[in-house]
């Protein structure tokens, strides 16, 4: 075999090992929006804009995912505290509509030091 034959052989083997390394390396999971409502749990990517309708005993809570943030746009509860909680953007943050039993949080990524270690809903 000639010099460049060896070069391409080594390059091909290096790509094999390198891509295996990348594939197997532990990485932070992408940021996701997790919504719990009367129907169960739903998951959506945080980086795709969408409107989520969560069903609760009082009606539909409308949740918007936009510009890598999540906020409650509208809810049938009386005090609208969930709307006032504003936009959440980092892993561990949450917004809840207690009267309508809707819970929204961001999961994945590296956990922020401010977020609680566990939560019970």
């Amino acid at each position, binding site marked *: 075999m000639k010099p*460049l034959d060896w070069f391409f052989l080594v390059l091909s083997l290096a*790509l094999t090992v390198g891509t295996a390394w990348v*594939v197997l390396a532990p990485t932070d999971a992408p940021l996701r929006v997790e919504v719990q409502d009367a129907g169960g749990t739903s998951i959506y990517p945080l980086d795709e804009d969408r409107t989520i309708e969560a069903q609760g005993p009082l009606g539909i809570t409308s949740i918007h995912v936009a510009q890598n943030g999540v906020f409650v746009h509208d809810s049938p509860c009386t005090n609208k505290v969930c709307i006032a909680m504003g936009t959440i953007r980092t892993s561990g943050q949450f917004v809840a509509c207690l009267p309508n039993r809707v819970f929204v949080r961001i999961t994945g990524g590296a956990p922020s030091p401010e977020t609680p270690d566990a939560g019970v809903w």
Partner: protein
Amino acid sequence: MPGFGKRPVRTDLVAFFGALSLFFATLEYLFPKPIPFFRLGLSNLPLLVSLGFFSFREQLLLLLLKVVGTGIVNGTLTSYVFLFSTGATLASFLVMYGLYRLTPPRLVSLTGISLAGAIASNAVQIALAMGIVYGPASGVVAPWYFGLGTFTGWAMGWGATQFQKHSKWLGRLRGQT
């Protein structure tokens, strides 16, 4: 060494090599594949072997015949398989042809050229699989593609070298061209 299109295209010879490529592609189509979309590269053998005596235009025509012909013969012309085949073959050809023309023979043989072509072909196929068919999660097949590609690239190059060395038919053909 053949130039860049100054001589008329030898259509009969290009057609014959195109047919050889199709023939090997048909044989390859019948082999069970260890992972989806993975190609052994048998149909590249005529492309490799003809590097020495086809002009760029003739090589390009051969490539077109291989890609379009395989699509027609296997009935996959209007499917995503054709997209994979075209992308992979084009990338492989550009790398192999460039390497053959720009590198002195003492530095690289058909084995190295075939390995380089296999790397390019597999990189394009992985990109297409991740970008169009399976999504980003399919990057997990990359180590398999490159690993198997190392073996098949070396094997095809070795096979082409042996054929060049020992084929009396090819020897007479090269003497006439």
